[in-house]
């Protein structure tokens, strides 16, 4: 936990320093007053100072034995479920423009409920169809929300 907090704060420090560098590339002032870089510059500077202070205080904190048992990354049987959600969501986002919302969601729904433990094929099929074609119909027809059609329907 302590190590994780140190790493996370280090990443935030790097982010603030990067933002500081980017802000310096913009004008801090112009003839009317503060320029586009003014606010990001001061924010990034304050953020960097805060990150250093947090690194310092976290580093000085006494090590709590209970903290060592806290696992930051997913572990155990839950890790597979965690990974399934992330991978399938990423695959769906990548495929949606090409195959469209309906097909991408059909596969996503079926694959995710199986990955999360469902084994009744008829229930999986009904849910996958309703959650893709059914939801697409409701949102595009009744709620006027535009969703990617994909190469088959375009």
């Amino acid at each position, binding site marked *: 936990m302590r190590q994780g907090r140190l790493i996370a704060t280090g990443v935030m420090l790097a982010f603030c320093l990067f933002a500081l560098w980017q802000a310096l590339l913009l004008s801090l002032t112009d003839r009317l007053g503060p320029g586009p870089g003014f606010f990001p510059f001061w924010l990034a500077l304050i953020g960097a100072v*805060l990150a250093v202070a947090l690194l310092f205080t976290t580093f000085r904190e006494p090590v709590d034995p209970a903290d060592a048992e806290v696992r930051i990354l997913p572990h155990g049987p839950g890790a597979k479920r965690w990974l399934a959600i992330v991978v399938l969501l990423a695959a769906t*986002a990548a495929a949606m423009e090409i195959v469209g919302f309906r097909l991408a969601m059909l596969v996503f729904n079926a694959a995710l409920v199986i990955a999360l433990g469902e084994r009744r094929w008829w229930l999986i099929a009904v849910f996958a169809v309703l959650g893709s074609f059914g939801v697409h119909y409701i949102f595009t027809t009744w709620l006027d929300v535009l969703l990617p059609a994909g190469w088959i329907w375009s």
Partner: protein
Amino acid sequence: MEAFHHLLAGFAAALTVKYLLFALAGCVLGTLIGVLPGLGPAAGTAILIPLTFSLDPTGAIIMLSAIYYGAMYGGTITSVLINVPGEAASVVTCIDGYQMALQGRAGSALAIAAIGSFVGGTLATVALVLVATPLATLALKFGPVEFFALMVAGLCLVVGLAGKNMLAALLMTVIGLLFAMIGLDPVRGAPRFTFGIEELYDGIGFVPVVMGLFGVAELLIAAEKRQARMIQADLKNWMPTKEERRASAGAIGRGTVIGFILGLIPGVGAIVPTFMAYVIEKRVSKTPERFGKGAIEGVASAETANNAYANAAMVPLLALGIPSSPTIAVLMGAFIINGLTPGPFLFQERPELVWTVIASFFVGNALLLILNLPLVGLWAKLLKIPFSYLCTGVLIFCVIGAYGLKQSLFDVWVMLGFGIIGYLLRKLDFPIAPAILALILGPMMERSLRTTLEMSGGSYAIFLDRPVALVLLTVPVIVLGALLLRPGTFSKLRETDTD
């Protein structure tokens, strides 16, 4: 008197079939969100934004507000029946509510929670009517100097109440503000931090970020855990006994006052008023030893304070344009999506919308009471939905919500990215609420500060010349200083609070 006339007109609109249906749909969906463990009001409200895309602004805000306070009530059901709070504010309800369920009194616990929520929500809305107009009138006299100071004060209070994590909360606020800087500069229109990526010219979308940090992150955390089991409860005899009603009356009154007052303060979060109401109730009780063993006053006080808080938290949003919690920030986002800027000018420019929405709070509270007393058994059945279907169903809405706003797959990636970031931040105990509030307030803060400095020719002395701004900037400094000297205050209460 003028407010009363506006409110009557608001009722006339809110009671039309169209808006009644929106309020009803919002209450049903909100209760559903609250019932499902792990999905809080902020995520629920954000996820359901796409349902309002085709509605007129008034209908959209009515429905999303109803989802918000519906979710605040719905969390009670899981607290009582499976000892798992449906949302953070219901943590306190678990203490006595679950004990009552084990004793076969689940029906009474849920009924008194519904009655307390109705009374607390309704009385807080009456107070909102009385407070909002004078506050908005006062705020009309504010210039950019005062608005900047007000936003700084709001963010400082959010940070201050993070307790032992105050330094982390300050850093998260700055990170949120830096993310808000992405896109076109709001004053000159110059691109910043866009790196030539077209999608970044509009800035990082608030809705995908909230869906990621609250919706996807919550599901990722839930996916790791084993699901809790519901106890078999008799929900047919839900009417509390005469003795229970008498015991709860005082608790409901005190819970309303505590919830309303704390709801006015930005950053307090829903868990603080519920905990405070519970502690006070235990202090004033002649038999404090019953608390923790199934005291109905414990359930009544916490649930009343919870809903009084939810309605009172609308005051800073409607009158000042300042969101006091992530869920209210989502509602503010919904206002902005609909082309409206909440705050004092909205009372002048769109009084019919503001008062219809306020009137709908009364209607929504009544609908929640009707929905929750006789139908409590039906809501309890929803707890049997397997996680596999629940998780997939919520993710479908997340994808549509993230994509649908700008028809951009980039926003789906943003949602997924922030989902993983939110998961890690929670595991590492970094407070997320300050970053969310900073993200939505960032552009307004920058605009106000830069206009102020243009007005003063670059001199910061302008803040000393304006008494309101000076007070608004001084108070949070004192609060932060005092809390830095006494770290740990509120920290235990805030650990799980996402609202």
